[in-house]
Protein backbone atom coordinates (compact mmCIF):
# COMPACT_ATOMS: atom_id res chain seq x y z
CA UNK A 1 0.00 0.00 0.00
CA UNK A 2 2.79 2.36 0.92
CA UNK A 3 4.59 1.69 -2.34
CA UNK A 4 1.45 2.28 -4.33
CA UNK A 5 0.94 5.63 -2.62
CA UNK A 6 4.56 6.40 -3.28
CA UNK A 7 4.12 5.63 -6.99
CA UNK A 8 1.00 7.74 -7.20
CA UNK A 9 2.65 10.71 -5.54
CA UNK A 10 5.70 10.26 -7.84
CA UNK A 11 3.44 10.33 -10.85
CA UNK A 12 1.70 13.39 -9.50
CA UNK A 13 5.00 15.10 -8.87
CA UNK A 14 6.14 14.31 -12.41
CA UNK A 15 2.91 15.56 -13.88
CA UNK A 16 3.12 18.82 -11.98
CA UNK A 17 6.75 19.20 -13.00
CA UNK A 18 5.86 18.67 -16.63
CA UNK A 19 3.02 21.15 -16.27
CA UNK A 20 5.33 23.71 -14.71
CA UNK A 21 7.88 23.23 -17.47
CA UNK A 22 5.18 23.61 -20.09
CA UNK A 23 3.96 26.80 -18.47
CA UNK A 24 7.50 28.13 -18.39
CA UNK A 25 7.93 27.33 -22.06
CA UNK A 26 4.69 29.06 -22.94
CA UNK A 27 5.77 32.07 -20.88
CA UNK A 28 9.13 32.38 -22.65
CA UNK A 29 7.65 31.86 -26.08
CA UNK A 30 4.98 34.43 -25.23
CA UNK A 31 7.58 36.94 -24.04
CA UNK A 32 9.64 36.37 -27.17
CA UNK A 33 6.60 36.99 -29.32
CA UNK A 34 5.73 40.07 -27.26
CA UNK A 35 9.15 41.60 -27.85
CA UNK A 36 8.83 40.86 -31.53
CA UNK A 37 5.46 42.58 -31.55
CA UNK A 38 7.00 45.59 -29.80
CA UNK A 39 9.79 45.73 -32.37
CA UNK A 40 7.46 45.38 -35.32
CA UNK A 41 4.94 47.83 -33.94
CA UNK A 42 7.72 50.35 -33.35
CA UNK A 43 8.63 50.08 -37.00
CA UNK A 44 5.01 50.44 -38.03
CA UNK A 45 4.26 53.24 -35.57
CA UNK A 46 7.29 55.16 -36.76
CA UNK A 47 6.29 54.84 -40.36
CA UNK A 48 2.60 55.58 -39.81
CA UNK A 49 3.31 58.58 -37.60
CA UNK A 50 5.65 60.04 -40.19
CA UNK A 51 3.26 59.20 -42.98
CA UNK A 52 0.17 60.70 -41.39
CA UNK A 53 2.00 63.82 -40.26
CA UNK A 54 3.77 64.28 -43.55
CA UNK A 55 0.85 63.37 -45.79
CA UNK A 56 -0.13 66.96 -46.74
CA UNK A 57 3.37 67.57 -48.09
CA UNK A 58 3.81 64.09 -49.57
CA UNK A 59 0.77 64.67 -51.79
CA UNK A 60 2.11 67.98 -52.99
CA UNK A 61 4.26 67.65 -56.15
CA UNK A 62 5.99 70.93 -55.27
CA UNK A 63 7.50 69.19 -52.25
CA UNK A 64 9.65 67.12 -54.58
CA UNK A 65 10.36 69.95 -57.04
CA UNK A 66 11.01 72.93 -54.75
CA UNK A 67 14.17 74.12 -53.08
CA UNK A 68 14.16 74.61 -49.29
CA UNK A 69 12.51 77.83 -48.28
CA UNK A 70 11.85 80.07 -45.30
CA UNK A 71 8.17 79.38 -45.76
CA UNK A 72 7.42 75.86 -44.65
CA UNK A 73 4.59 75.26 -47.10
CA UNK A 74 6.79 76.20 -50.07
CA UNK A 75 9.89 74.34 -48.96
CA UNK A 76 10.80 71.21 -50.87
CA UNK A 77 13.41 68.51 -51.08
CA UNK A 78 14.66 69.02 -54.63
CA UNK A 79 18.24 69.90 -53.73
CA UNK A 80 18.22 67.21 -51.03
CA UNK A 81 17.23 64.26 -53.18
CA UNK A 82 19.43 65.36 -56.05
CA UNK A 83 22.27 65.74 -53.55
CA UNK A 84 21.60 62.32 -52.06
CA UNK A 85 21.76 60.74 -55.51
CA UNK A 86 25.00 62.53 -56.41
CA UNK A 87 26.67 61.75 -53.07
CA UNK A 88 25.59 58.11 -53.38
CA UNK A 89 27.10 57.90 -56.87
CA UNK A 90 30.45 59.07 -55.49
CA UNK A 91 30.16 56.80 -52.45
CA UNK A 92 29.32 53.76 -54.56
CA UNK A 93 32.12 54.46 -57.04
CA UNK A 94 34.69 54.61 -54.24
CA UNK A 95 33.50 52.18 -51.59
CA UNK A 96 32.27 49.30 -53.72
CA UNK A 97 35.43 48.62 -55.76
CA UNK A 98 37.67 49.38 -52.78
CA UNK A 99 35.67 47.19 -50.41
CA UNK A 100 35.44 44.28 -52.84
CA UNK A 101 39.16 44.47 -53.58
CA UNK A 102 40.06 44.51 -49.90
CA UNK A 103 37.65 41.66 -49.16
CA UNK A 104 39.07 39.59 -52.00
CA UNK A 105 42.58 40.22 -50.79
CA UNK A 106 41.83 39.19 -47.23
CA UNK A 107 39.89 36.09 -48.24
CA UNK A 108 41.88 34.81 -51.22
CA UNK A 109 45.35 36.30 -51.26
CA UNK A 110 46.45 37.16 -47.74
CA UNK A 111 48.93 34.81 -46.15
CA UNK A 112 48.76 34.17 -42.45
CA UNK A 113 51.20 36.73 -41.11
CA UNK A 114 51.16 39.78 -38.90
CA UNK A 115 50.26 42.16 -41.74
CA UNK A 116 47.08 40.18 -42.40
CA UNK A 117 46.27 40.06 -38.69
CA UNK A 118 46.76 43.80 -38.47
CA UNK A 119 44.43 44.47 -41.40
CA UNK A 120 41.79 42.07 -40.09
CA UNK A 121 41.73 43.49 -36.56
CA UNK A 122 41.72 46.93 -38.08
CA UNK A 123 38.68 46.26 -40.26
CA UNK A 124 36.83 44.79 -37.28
CA UNK A 125 37.64 47.85 -35.24
CA UNK A 126 36.71 50.32 -37.99
CA UNK A 127 33.29 48.71 -38.19
CA UNK A 128 32.73 49.77 -34.59
CA UNK A 129 34.03 53.34 -34.79
CA UNK A 130 31.12 55.81 -34.31
CA UNK A 131 30.13 57.55 -37.51
CA UNK A 132 30.73 60.98 -36.03
CA UNK A 133 34.41 60.13 -35.57
CA UNK A 134 34.62 59.63 -39.33
CA UNK A 135 33.18 63.11 -39.55
CA UNK A 136 36.01 64.44 -37.38
CA UNK A 137 38.51 62.65 -39.62
CA UNK A 138 37.00 64.29 -42.68
CA UNK A 139 36.90 67.69 -40.99
CA UNK A 140 40.52 67.56 -39.88
CA UNK A 141 41.95 65.83 -42.92
CA UNK A 142 39.91 66.65 -46.01
CA UNK A 143 38.60 70.08 -45.05
CA UNK A 144 41.54 71.60 -43.17
CA UNK A 145 44.66 69.57 -43.97
CA UNK A 146 43.85 69.12 -47.69
CA UNK A 147 41.97 72.40 -47.99
CA UNK A 148 38.93 70.89 -49.67
CA UNK A 149 35.52 72.49 -49.13
CA UNK A 150 32.21 70.93 -48.17
CA UNK A 151 31.55 69.29 -51.51
CA UNK A 152 29.83 66.24 -52.92
CA UNK A 153 33.27 64.66 -53.26
CA UNK A 154 34.18 65.04 -49.58
CA UNK A 155 30.77 63.74 -48.51
CA UNK A 156 31.17 60.75 -50.82
CA UNK A 157 34.66 60.10 -49.49
CA UNK A 158 33.70 60.14 -45.83
CA UNK A 159 30.63 57.96 -46.39
CA UNK A 160 32.78 55.57 -48.43
CA UNK A 161 35.23 55.13 -45.58
CA UNK A 162 32.32 54.69 -43.19
CA UNK A 163 30.70 51.81 -45.10
CA UNK A 164 33.95 50.23 -46.27
CA UNK A 165 33.97 47.67 -43.41
CA UNK A 166 30.40 46.60 -44.26
CA UNK A 167 31.35 45.89 -47.86
CA UNK A 168 34.62 44.19 -46.93
CA UNK A 169 32.93 41.89 -44.43
CA UNK A 170 30.08 40.94 -46.75
CA UNK A 171 32.47 40.33 -49.65
CA UNK A 172 34.47 37.99 -47.47
CA UNK A 173 31.38 36.14 -46.33
CA UNK A 174 30.14 35.82 -49.91
CA UNK A 175 33.47 34.41 -51.07
CA UNK A 176 33.72 32.08 -48.11
CA UNK A 177 30.35 30.56 -48.95
CA UNK A 178 31.52 29.47 -52.41
CA UNK A 179 32.32 25.76 -52.44
CA UNK A 180 36.03 25.00 -52.55
CA UNK A 181 35.17 22.76 -55.52
CA UNK A 182 34.69 25.75 -57.86
CA UNK A 183 38.08 27.07 -56.98
CA UNK A 184 39.72 23.68 -57.39
CA UNK A 185 38.02 23.21 -60.74
CA UNK A 186 39.42 26.47 -62.05
CA UNK A 187 42.88 25.91 -60.59
CA UNK A 188 42.84 22.35 -61.92
CA UNK A 189 42.24 23.70 -65.41
CA UNK A 190 45.40 25.77 -65.14
CA UNK A 191 43.93 29.11 -64.11
CA UNK A 192 46.18 31.38 -62.11
CA UNK A 193 44.94 33.12 -59.00
CA UNK A 194 43.64 36.23 -60.70
CA UNK A 195 41.85 34.25 -63.43
CA UNK A 196 40.28 32.06 -60.75
CA UNK A 197 39.22 35.06 -58.71
CA UNK A 198 37.99 37.24 -61.52
CA UNK A 199 36.36 34.70 -63.80
CA UNK A 200 35.06 32.15 -61.35
CA UNK A 201 34.98 33.28 -57.72
CA UNK A 202 33.67 36.82 -58.14
CA UNK A 203 30.81 35.87 -60.48
CA UNK A 204 29.72 33.14 -58.09
CA UNK A 205 29.94 35.52 -55.12
CA UNK A 206 28.09 38.28 -56.92
CA UNK A 207 24.71 38.02 -55.13
CA UNK A 208 26.33 38.17 -51.70
CA UNK A 209 28.54 41.07 -52.69
CA UNK A 210 25.64 43.01 -54.19
CA UNK A 211 23.63 42.43 -51.03
CA UNK A 212 26.46 43.81 -48.91
CA UNK A 213 26.90 46.81 -51.17
CA UNK A 214 23.19 47.63 -51.02
CA UNK A 215 23.10 47.33 -47.23
CA UNK A 216 26.19 49.53 -46.99
CA UNK A 217 24.79 52.16 -49.33
CA UNK A 218 21.45 52.20 -47.55
CA UNK A 219 23.34 52.91 -44.36
CA UNK A 220 25.19 55.73 -46.11
CA UNK A 221 21.93 57.25 -47.37
CA UNK A 222 20.63 57.65 -43.83
CA UNK A 223 23.90 58.84 -42.30
CA UNK A 224 23.71 62.37 -40.95
CA UNK A 225 26.30 62.94 -38.25
CA UNK A 226 29.55 62.83 -40.27
CA UNK A 227 28.11 65.20 -42.85
CA UNK A 228 27.03 67.69 -40.20
CA UNK A 229 30.55 67.52 -38.79
CA UNK A 230 32.14 68.58 -42.06
CA UNK A 231 29.81 71.55 -42.02
CA UNK A 232 27.34 70.46 -44.65
CA UNK A 233 24.30 71.91 -42.91
CA UNK A 234 23.87 74.90 -45.14
CA UNK A 235 21.07 76.43 -47.08
CA UNK A 236 21.34 75.03 -50.61
CA UNK A 237 18.81 76.49 -53.02
CA UNK A 238 20.44 75.48 -56.26
CA UNK A 239 21.41 72.30 -58.06
CA UNK A 240 24.93 71.28 -59.01
CA UNK A 241 25.68 71.34 -62.73
CA UNK A 242 24.06 68.36 -64.36
CA UNK A 243 26.52 65.53 -64.95
CA UNK A 244 25.18 65.07 -68.47
CA UNK A 245 24.59 67.89 -70.91
CA UNK A 246 23.66 68.32 -74.56
CA UNK A 247 26.94 70.01 -75.47
CA UNK A 248 30.33 68.47 -76.06
CA UNK A 249 31.82 66.63 -74.09
CA UNK A 250 28.35 65.68 -72.79
CA UNK A 251 29.65 64.51 -69.42
CA UNK A 252 31.19 66.79 -66.84
CA UNK A 253 32.38 66.41 -63.30
CA UNK A 254 31.70 69.93 -62.01
CA UNK A 255 29.01 68.49 -59.76
CA UNK A 256 31.63 66.60 -57.79
CA UNK A 257 33.08 69.83 -56.41
CA UNK A 258 29.74 71.48 -55.82
CA UNK A 259 28.25 72.23 -52.38
CA UNK A 260 25.35 69.98 -51.55
CA UNK A 261 22.68 68.96 -49.12
CA UNK A 262 21.21 65.49 -48.64
CA UNK A 263 17.91 64.06 -47.41
CA UNK A 264 18.83 63.35 -43.78
CA UNK A 265 20.47 66.75 -43.39
CA UNK A 266 17.43 68.47 -44.83
CA UNK A 267 15.27 66.50 -42.43
CA UNK A 268 17.52 67.44 -39.51
CA UNK A 269 17.39 71.11 -40.36
CA UNK A 270 13.60 70.97 -40.40
CA UNK A 271 13.38 68.94 -37.18
CA UNK A 272 15.50 71.51 -35.36
CA UNK A 273 13.11 74.36 -36.21
CA UNK A 274 10.61 75.28 -33.54
CA UNK A 275 7.67 75.92 -35.92
CA UNK A 276 5.24 73.04 -36.22
CA UNK A 277 4.84 73.52 -40.00
CA UNK A 278 8.45 72.54 -40.50
CA UNK A 279 7.86 69.36 -38.53
CA UNK A 280 5.38 68.38 -41.23
CA UNK A 281 8.13 68.81 -43.79
CA UNK A 282 10.50 66.83 -41.59
CA UNK A 283 7.99 63.99 -41.35
CA UNK A 284 7.48 63.99 -45.11
CA UNK A 285 11.25 63.90 -45.68
CA UNK A 286 11.43 61.09 -43.12
CA UNK A 287 8.90 59.07 -45.09
CA UNK A 288 10.94 59.48 -48.26
CA UNK A 289 14.11 58.44 -46.39
CA UNK A 290 12.45 55.46 -44.77
CA UNK A 291 10.94 54.27 -48.03
CA UNK A 292 14.35 54.58 -49.69
CA UNK A 293 16.28 52.68 -47.05
CA UNK A 294 13.61 50.06 -46.39
CA UNK A 295 13.33 49.39 -50.12
CA UNK A 296 17.08 48.93 -50.40
CA UNK A 297 17.09 46.60 -47.42
CA UNK A 298 14.17 44.67 -48.85
CA UNK A 299 16.02 44.23 -52.14
CA UNK A 300 19.07 42.98 -50.29
CA UNK A 301 17.00 40.54 -48.22
CA UNK A 302 15.22 39.35 -51.35
CA UNK A 303 18.47 38.66 -53.20
CA UNK A 304 19.80 36.69 -50.26
CA UNK A 305 16.55 34.76 -49.95
CA UNK A 306 16.54 33.89 -53.64
CA UNK A 307 20.14 32.73 -53.56
CA UNK A 308 19.46 30.53 -50.56
CA UNK A 309 16.47 29.01 -52.32
CA UNK A 310 18.46 28.02 -55.41
CA UNK A 311 21.32 26.52 -53.44
Amino acid at each position, binding site marked *: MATLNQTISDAQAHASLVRRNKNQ*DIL*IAGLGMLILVIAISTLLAMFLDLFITGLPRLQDPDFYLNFPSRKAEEAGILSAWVGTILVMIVTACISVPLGIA*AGVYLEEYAGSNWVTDLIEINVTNLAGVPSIVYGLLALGLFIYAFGMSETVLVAGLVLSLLILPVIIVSTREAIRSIPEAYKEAAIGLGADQW*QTTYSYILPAARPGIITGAIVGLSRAIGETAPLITIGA*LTYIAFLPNAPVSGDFPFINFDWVTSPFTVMPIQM*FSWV*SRPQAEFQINAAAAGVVLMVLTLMMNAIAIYIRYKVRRTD
Partner: protein
Amino acid sequence: MLTTPDDQLRAAITPTPNFLRKRALIDKLARCILFAAAAVSVFVTIGIVYILVSESLFFFDNVSLKEFLTSTTWTPLFAVPSFGIWPLLSGTLTVSAIALSIAIPLGLLLAIYMSEYAPPKVRESVKPVLEMLEGVPTIVYGYFALMMVTPLLQTFIPGLPGFNMLSPGIVMGIMILPYTTSLSEDAMRAVPRELREGAYALGYSRFYTAIKVVIPAAISGITAAFILAMSRAVGETMVVAIAAGQMANFTFNPMEGAATITTFIVQVSLGDVRHGSIGYQSIFAVGLVLFLMTLMFNVIGFLLRRRYRLAY
Protein backbone atom coordinates in the same frame (compact mmCIF):
# COMPACT_ATOMS: atom_id res chain seq x y z
CA MET B 1 32.45 18.24 -88.74
CA LEU B 2 35.89 17.90 -87.32
CA THR B 3 38.28 18.86 -90.05
CA THR B 4 41.49 20.13 -88.52
CA PRO B 5 44.25 17.55 -88.08
CA ASP B 6 45.18 16.82 -84.49
CA ASP B 7 48.60 18.44 -84.38
CA GLN B 8 47.28 21.67 -85.91
CA LEU B 9 44.49 21.69 -83.36
CA ARG B 10 46.96 21.13 -80.61
CA ALA B 11 49.02 24.06 -81.81
CA ALA B 12 45.88 26.20 -81.91
CA ILE B 13 45.00 25.50 -78.28
CA THR B 14 48.49 25.85 -76.82
CA PRO B 15 48.82 29.16 -74.96
CA THR B 16 51.34 31.48 -76.58
CA PRO B 17 54.38 32.52 -74.52
CA ASN B 18 53.24 36.07 -75.01
CA PHE B 19 49.89 35.29 -73.43
CA LEU B 20 51.51 33.52 -70.51
CA ARG B 21 53.82 36.48 -69.88
CA LYS B 22 50.89 38.88 -69.99
CA ARG B 23 48.89 36.62 -67.70
CA ALA B 24 51.68 36.45 -65.12
CA LEU B 25 52.03 40.23 -65.21
CA ILE B 26 48.31 40.80 -64.69
CA ASP B 27 48.32 38.30 -61.85
CA LYS B 28 51.11 40.14 -60.09
CA LEU B 29 49.55 43.54 -60.73
CA ALA B 30 46.19 42.36 -59.39
CA ARG B 31 47.82 41.13 -56.21
CA CYS B 32 49.47 44.53 -55.65
CA ILE B 33 46.25 46.46 -56.29
CA LEU B 34 44.21 44.21 -54.01
CA PHE B 35 46.78 44.55 -51.26
CA ALA B 36 46.74 48.32 -51.61
CA ALA B 37 42.95 48.30 -51.26
CA ALA B 38 43.18 46.20 -48.11
CA ALA B 39 45.83 48.54 -46.73
CA VAL B 40 43.54 51.57 -47.15
CA SER B 41 41.64 50.55 -44.04
CA VAL B 42 44.83 50.73 -42.02
CA PHE B 43 45.47 54.25 -43.28
CA VAL B 44 41.94 55.23 -42.27
CA THR B 45 42.68 54.19 -38.71
CA ILE B 46 46.04 55.95 -38.77
CA GLY B 47 44.28 59.04 -40.12
CA ILE B 48 41.65 58.96 -37.39
CA VAL B 49 44.21 58.55 -34.62
CA TYR B 50 46.52 61.18 -36.08
CA ILE B 51 43.81 63.82 -36.50
CA LEU B 52 42.26 63.22 -33.09
CA VAL B 53 45.57 63.17 -31.24
CA SER B 54 47.18 66.12 -33.01
CA GLU B 55 44.19 68.44 -32.56
CA SER B 56 43.77 67.25 -28.97
CA LEU B 57 47.40 68.13 -28.28
CA PHE B 58 46.65 71.73 -29.27
CA PHE B 59 43.62 71.61 -27.01
CA PHE B 60 45.65 70.42 -24.05
CA ASP B 61 48.16 73.22 -24.66
CA ASN B 62 45.39 75.55 -23.53
CA VAL B 63 43.48 73.38 -21.12
CA SER B 64 45.06 71.35 -18.38
CA LEU B 65 44.33 67.65 -18.29
CA LYS B 66 43.41 68.14 -14.65
CA GLU B 67 40.67 70.60 -15.49
CA PHE B 68 39.45 68.35 -18.30
CA LEU B 69 39.13 65.35 -16.05
CA THR B 70 37.96 66.96 -12.80
CA SER B 71 35.88 70.05 -13.57
CA THR B 72 32.13 69.52 -13.68
CA THR B 73 31.18 72.35 -15.98
CA TRP B 74 31.47 72.27 -19.77
CA THR B 75 31.07 75.72 -21.32
CA PRO B 76 33.73 75.93 -24.04
CA LEU B 77 31.87 78.58 -26.05
CA PHE B 78 31.30 80.99 -23.18
CA ALA B 79 33.32 84.15 -22.69
CA VAL B 80 34.90 82.52 -19.65
CA PRO B 81 35.12 78.94 -20.85
CA SER B 82 35.26 75.87 -18.67
CA PHE B 83 36.40 72.48 -19.92
CA GLY B 84 35.31 69.68 -17.63
CA ILE B 85 34.23 66.61 -19.58
CA TRP B 86 32.04 65.18 -16.80
CA PRO B 87 28.78 66.79 -17.93
CA LEU B 88 29.22 65.27 -21.39
CA LEU B 89 30.17 61.89 -19.92
CA SER B 90 27.21 61.90 -17.56
CA GLY B 91 24.85 62.57 -20.47
CA THR B 92 26.49 59.91 -22.63
CA LEU B 93 26.45 57.32 -19.87
CA THR B 94 22.90 58.03 -18.73
CA VAL B 95 21.40 57.74 -22.20
CA SER B 96 23.49 54.63 -22.89
CA ALA B 97 22.44 53.05 -19.60
CA ILE B 98 18.76 53.56 -20.41
CA ALA B 99 19.27 52.17 -23.89
CA LEU B 100 21.13 49.11 -22.62
CA SER B 101 18.63 48.46 -19.84
CA ILE B 102 16.11 48.02 -22.64
CA ALA B 103 18.24 46.40 -25.31
CA ILE B 104 19.99 43.85 -23.08
CA PRO B 105 17.07 42.07 -21.35
CA LEU B 106 14.80 42.29 -24.38
CA GLY B 107 17.60 41.30 -26.72
CA LEU B 108 18.60 38.36 -24.54
CA LEU B 109 15.02 37.12 -24.22
CA LEU B 110 14.45 37.50 -27.92
CA ALA B 111 17.70 35.68 -28.63
CA ILE B 112 16.69 32.81 -26.33
CA TYR B 113 13.34 32.66 -28.05
CA MET B 114 14.89 32.72 -31.51
CA SER B 115 17.62 30.19 -30.87
CA GLU B 116 15.84 27.76 -28.51
CA TYR B 117 12.14 28.10 -29.15
CA ALA B 118 11.18 29.61 -32.49
CA PRO B 119 10.49 27.19 -35.33
CA PRO B 120 12.78 27.77 -38.31
CA LYS B 121 9.96 29.39 -40.26
CA VAL B 122 9.39 32.05 -37.60
CA ARG B 123 13.11 32.65 -37.33
CA GLU B 124 13.45 33.03 -41.07
CA SER B 125 10.72 35.62 -41.22
CA VAL B 126 11.73 37.51 -38.08
CA LYS B 127 15.34 38.09 -39.13
CA PRO B 128 14.40 40.30 -42.09
CA VAL B 129 12.11 42.38 -39.86
CA LEU B 130 14.97 42.94 -37.43
CA GLU B 131 17.25 43.84 -40.33
CA MET B 132 14.67 46.34 -41.55
CA LEU B 133 14.53 47.83 -38.07
CA GLU B 134 18.29 48.13 -38.12
CA GLY B 135 18.21 49.76 -41.55
CA VAL B 136 16.03 52.73 -40.57
CA PRO B 137 18.14 55.92 -40.57
CA THR B 138 18.98 57.11 -37.07
CA ILE B 139 17.59 60.55 -37.81
CA VAL B 140 14.16 58.98 -38.22
CA TYR B 141 14.54 57.43 -34.79
CA GLY B 142 15.46 60.87 -33.50
CA TYR B 143 12.31 62.38 -34.93
CA PHE B 144 10.34 59.48 -33.46
CA ALA B 145 11.82 60.11 -30.01
CA LEU B 146 11.17 63.86 -30.08
CA MET B 147 7.77 63.96 -31.73
CA MET B 148 6.14 60.75 -30.56
CA VAL B 149 7.81 59.12 -27.57
CA THR B 150 8.42 62.30 -25.57
CA PRO B 151 4.79 63.52 -25.85
CA LEU B 152 3.65 59.99 -24.95
CA LEU B 153 5.91 59.95 -21.88
CA GLN B 154 4.71 63.42 -20.89
CA THR B 155 1.19 62.05 -20.44
CA PHE B 156 2.52 59.60 -17.84
CA ILE B 157 5.17 61.82 -16.31
CA PRO B 158 3.84 65.34 -15.89
CA GLY B 159 6.53 67.96 -15.96
CA LEU B 160 8.87 65.98 -18.19
CA PRO B 161 10.69 68.57 -20.27
CA GLY B 162 10.58 68.41 -24.07
CA PHE B 163 14.27 67.62 -24.12
CA ASN B 164 15.09 64.71 -21.79
CA MET B 165 17.35 61.70 -21.77
CA LEU B 166 14.64 59.12 -21.08
CA SER B 167 12.94 59.30 -24.44
CA PRO B 168 16.05 59.08 -26.64
CA GLY B 169 17.37 56.37 -24.30
CA ILE B 170 14.27 54.24 -24.82
CA VAL B 171 14.26 54.78 -28.57
CA MET B 172 17.96 54.02 -28.80
CA GLY B 173 17.32 50.82 -26.84
CA ILE B 174 14.80 49.69 -29.44
CA MET B 175 17.16 50.82 -32.16
CA ILE B 176 20.03 48.61 -30.98
CA LEU B 177 17.75 45.73 -30.02
CA PRO B 178 18.27 43.93 -33.39
CA TYR B 179 22.02 44.24 -32.95
CA THR B 180 22.14 42.73 -29.45
CA THR B 181 19.66 40.06 -30.51
CA SER B 182 21.58 38.88 -33.52
CA LEU B 183 24.94 38.88 -31.73
CA SER B 184 23.56 36.96 -28.73
CA GLU B 185 21.70 34.56 -30.98
CA ASP B 186 24.88 33.85 -32.95
CA ALA B 187 26.64 33.05 -29.69
CA MET B 188 23.85 30.73 -28.53
CA ARG B 189 23.58 28.96 -31.84
CA ALA B 190 27.31 28.26 -31.70
CA VAL B 191 26.74 26.13 -28.60
CA PRO B 192 27.06 22.52 -29.76
CA ARG B 193 23.87 20.52 -30.04
CA GLU B 194 25.32 17.71 -27.86
CA LEU B 195 25.37 20.00 -24.85
CA ARG B 196 21.66 20.68 -25.22
CA GLU B 197 20.87 17.03 -25.85
CA GLY B 198 22.76 16.10 -22.71
CA ALA B 199 20.58 18.46 -20.72
CA TYR B 200 17.36 17.24 -22.31
CA ALA B 201 18.40 13.65 -21.64
CA LEU B 202 18.61 14.53 -17.94
CA GLY B 203 15.01 15.71 -18.08
CA TYR B 204 15.76 19.44 -18.15
CA SER B 205 13.03 21.62 -19.51
CA ARG B 206 13.69 23.89 -22.42
CA PHE B 207 13.78 26.93 -20.21
CA TYR B 208 16.13 25.22 -17.75
CA THR B 209 18.37 24.10 -20.60
CA ALA B 210 18.53 27.63 -21.91
CA ILE B 211 19.29 29.15 -18.51
CA LYS B 212 21.57 26.48 -17.08
CA VAL B 213 23.34 25.15 -20.16
CA VAL B 214 23.10 27.37 -23.22
CA ILE B 215 23.62 30.76 -21.63
CA PRO B 216 26.60 29.70 -19.48
CA ALA B 217 28.17 28.05 -22.53
CA ALA B 218 27.58 31.13 -24.66
CA ILE B 219 28.40 33.62 -21.94
CA SER B 220 31.47 35.14 -23.54
CA GLY B 221 29.61 35.70 -26.80
CA ILE B 222 26.65 37.20 -24.99
CA THR B 223 28.91 39.47 -22.96
CA ALA B 224 30.55 40.52 -26.21
CA ALA B 225 27.11 41.39 -27.57
CA PHE B 226 26.43 43.64 -24.58
CA ILE B 227 29.77 45.35 -24.79
CA LEU B 228 29.45 45.95 -28.51
CA ALA B 229 25.95 47.32 -27.89
CA MET B 230 27.47 49.66 -25.32
CA SER B 231 29.96 50.84 -27.91
CA ARG B 232 27.09 51.46 -30.33
CA ALA B 233 25.13 53.40 -27.71
CA VAL B 234 27.89 55.78 -26.64
CA GLY B 235 28.70 56.59 -30.27
CA GLU B 236 25.12 57.19 -31.37
CA THR B 237 24.54 60.76 -32.43
CA MET B 238 21.35 61.80 -34.14
CA VAL B 239 18.78 60.41 -31.70
CA VAL B 240 20.32 62.31 -28.79
CA ALA B 241 21.13 65.38 -30.84
CA ILE B 242 17.45 65.75 -31.71
CA ALA B 243 15.70 64.61 -28.54
CA ALA B 244 18.03 65.10 -25.57
CA GLY B 245 18.81 68.78 -25.97
CA GLN B 246 22.22 70.35 -26.36
CA MET B 247 22.86 71.84 -22.94
CA ALA B 248 25.81 70.30 -21.13
CA ASN B 249 24.35 69.32 -17.80
CA PHE B 250 26.12 67.35 -15.10
CA THR B 251 23.32 65.01 -14.11
CA PHE B 252 22.39 61.37 -14.19
CA ASN B 253 18.68 62.15 -13.95
CA PRO B 254 16.96 60.76 -17.04
CA MET B 255 14.13 63.27 -16.64
CA GLU B 256 16.46 66.12 -17.51
CA GLY B 257 17.91 67.04 -20.84
CA ALA B 258 21.66 66.88 -21.29
CA ALA B 259 24.28 66.97 -24.01
CA THR B 260 26.36 63.91 -24.82
CA ILE B 261 29.82 63.83 -26.35
CA THR B 262 28.30 63.33 -29.79
CA THR B 263 25.71 66.09 -29.45
CA PHE B 264 28.40 68.51 -28.40
CA ILE B 265 30.33 67.74 -31.59
CA VAL B 266 27.15 68.27 -33.62
CA GLN B 267 26.40 71.50 -31.80
CA VAL B 268 29.84 72.94 -32.48
CA SER B 269 29.74 71.79 -36.11
CA LEU B 270 26.40 73.51 -36.63
CA GLY B 271 27.76 76.82 -35.42
CA ASP B 272 30.44 78.88 -37.02
CA VAL B 273 33.58 77.87 -35.20
CA ARG B 274 36.89 78.93 -36.65
CA HIS B 275 39.61 76.41 -37.44
CA GLY B 276 42.24 76.62 -34.73
CA SER B 277 39.96 78.10 -32.09
CA ILE B 278 39.65 76.37 -28.76
CA GLY B 279 36.06 75.45 -29.55
CA TYR B 280 37.22 73.71 -32.72
CA GLN B 281 39.95 71.85 -30.86
CA SER B 282 37.58 70.83 -28.10
CA ILE B 283 35.48 68.65 -30.40
CA PHE B 284 38.60 66.66 -31.29
CA ALA B 285 39.50 66.29 -27.62
CA VAL B 286 36.06 64.91 -26.74
CA GLY B 287 36.12 62.95 -30.02
CA LEU B 288 39.33 61.31 -28.83
CA VAL B 289 37.66 60.36 -25.54
CA LEU B 290 34.74 58.88 -27.50
CA PHE B 291 37.09 57.01 -29.83
CA LEU B 292 39.07 55.55 -26.93
CA MET B 293 35.88 54.46 -25.18
CA THR B 294 34.49 52.69 -28.23
CA LEU B 295 37.91 51.26 -29.07
CA MET B 296 38.11 49.73 -25.61
CA PHE B 297 34.62 48.23 -25.93
CA ASN B 298 35.34 46.97 -29.42
CA VAL B 299 38.60 45.33 -28.45
CA ILE B 300 37.03 43.59 -25.44
CA GLY B 301 34.09 42.52 -27.59
CA PHE B 302 36.43 41.26 -30.31
CA LEU B 303 38.47 39.20 -27.87
CA LEU B 304 35.38 37.71 -26.21
CA ARG B 305 33.86 36.82 -29.56
CA ARG B 306 37.06 35.22 -30.68
CA ARG B 307 37.10 33.20 -27.48
CA TYR B 308 33.73 31.62 -28.11
CA ARG B 309 34.65 31.01 -31.75
CA LEU B 310 37.76 29.17 -30.61
CA ALA B 311 35.88 27.25 -27.89
CA TYR B 312 33.50 25.61 -30.37
